[in-house]
């Protein structure tokens, strides 16, 4: 980070090109806004194939993450994500707390004090790998991974072709949303929905849906 002042460093001619501490914080705040706005939808999705608490749990977790960021003002994006992960683990409950929490912590660790789009690509990849490892899930099992894996691939592809942070995040958000929608015809193989067997078919996975919101939030806060 070349600048320690609170609101500079990210914006170059109005464009947000780096994930510095300020942008990372804005990301988490935006995640909380989107989760809040979609709390009922997440709860309804979860009531259909799970136990109906995903909206409330995520709301509690991200609200705690935002409150913690307001208190401690971490100096780089890596620490912002690490703090977010810790709060998600501490406050969310359910499977999503450890999964998202570990994902954000590993992303934060990978990012450290780097800020450029390539570093963000590696951080998102670390998030995906840690969630896959902890949850023991792979794609097409109707989980978070079905939204996050295509999002990470799209982010890497766009940034690899020279796309900036917003372009990569936008491509990732679209891929995550497509991935979440693509869970509808899948039969759940992991998590509580797996108990439903074939009855889980025909419904969007709430974890994939919340993942799509998390990635969409990154696209929102990096928009010019």
């Amino acid at each position: 980070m070349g600048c320690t002042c609170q609101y500079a460093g990210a914006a170059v001619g109005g464009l947000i090109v780096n994930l510095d501490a300020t942008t990372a914080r804005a990301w988490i705040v935006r995640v909380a806004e989107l989760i809040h706005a979609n709390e009922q939808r997440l709860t309804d999705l979860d009531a259909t194939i799970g136990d109906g608490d995903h909206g409330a749990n995520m709301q509690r977790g991200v609200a705690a993450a935002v409150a913690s960021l307001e208190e401690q003002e971490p100096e780089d994006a890596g620490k912002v994500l690490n703090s977010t992960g810790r709060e998600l683990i501490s406050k969310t409950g359910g499977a999503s707390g450890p999964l998202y929490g570990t994902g954000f912590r590993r992303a934060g660790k990978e990012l450290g004090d780097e800020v450029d789009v390539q570093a963000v690509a590696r951080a998102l990849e670390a998030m995906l790998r840690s969630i896959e490892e902890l949850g023991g899930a792979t794609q097409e099992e109707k989980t978070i991974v079905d939204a996050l894996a295509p999002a990470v691939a799209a982010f890497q592809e766009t940034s690899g072709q020279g796309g900036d942070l917003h372009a990569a995040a936008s491509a990732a958000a679209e891929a995550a949303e497509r991935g979440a929608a693509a869970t509808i015809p899948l039969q759940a193989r992991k998590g509580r929905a797996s108990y439903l067997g074939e009855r889980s078919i025909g419904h969007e996975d709430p974890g994939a849906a919340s993942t799509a919101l998390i990635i969409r939030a990154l696209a929102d806060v990096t928009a010019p």
Partner: protein
Amino acid sequence: MKKLINSPDTVITDALRGMSAAHPGLTVDVENRVISRAQRASDKVGLVSGGGSGHEPLHGGYVGHGMLDAAVPGEIYTSPVPDQIIAATKAANADRGVLHIVKNYTGDVLNFQMAAELAEDEGIDVVSVIMNDDVAVEDSTHTAGRRGTGATIVAEKVAGAAAEEGADLETVARIATEVNERSRSFGIALHAGTVPSAGRPGFELADDEVELGVGIHGEPGRERGTFGPARDLVSYALDAIHADLSISDEVLLILNGQGATPLIELYGAFAEASAWLGGHGAAMVRSLVGNYITSLDQAGFSITVTSLTDELRRLWDAPVSTPALRWGV
């Protein structure tokens, strides 16, 4: 929907305040949501369990001499978080190691796993036993595996008794594991329970329908079935258990209510269960009838059968003094 609550937001806090007021033998940390023995045990393996709230008396009602040292309630139907579990582990630790008894749900397993790793970092030996006694769902690589249900009570009781006798951590864990291996459960719901914050039943059942193999969070089981007399429903449950683990010899049978089924109906069902066992050459040498692992106000029942050994029977009979199980003291 009418519920005897102040508000959906305070259900757990209010219940913990009530437990604290009702049971002087417990220390209830209402803010951090840890229930532990008021009189800390010394020189024994500690036992900790926990899970989502809504299953009362599980787990807080099983804290006390002869069973758990501490329990952690999560939000309704939601796993507790690692901070709670670590606090409970510390409260239970008497330098002989701590056993975590965990019901097999992804959230519970992950949160207890994170807590166990953090507790180990602080120098506490932790061994976890995962309970997965529910035969309703397939145990395969294609699902999250079988769910932990009624056998958890048996594991907490007999492992607790072993710990009280001075058994080491390995032995206490072995006994809890043995209970899991020798137990099977099956539940049937007549009417869904209502999570207070949701305000409406978790699922809909028509008047002539039952959910066969229902989980303790109201999650569906094998299939929707046709409603019938208690005799038929009990037979269905016991047949399902029997198909998975042959029931013979001496068994412990728990006829458990899911929260909104009156005791008179549970006793009627118990009579059918007793007759079924007699017809299959099994001897019911120990039993419980009542609400021991509930699903809020879900109507229905579950049956847990544990095939006893001499050791398990002796440990089951050992003195216990908790809010929900009390004998021999």
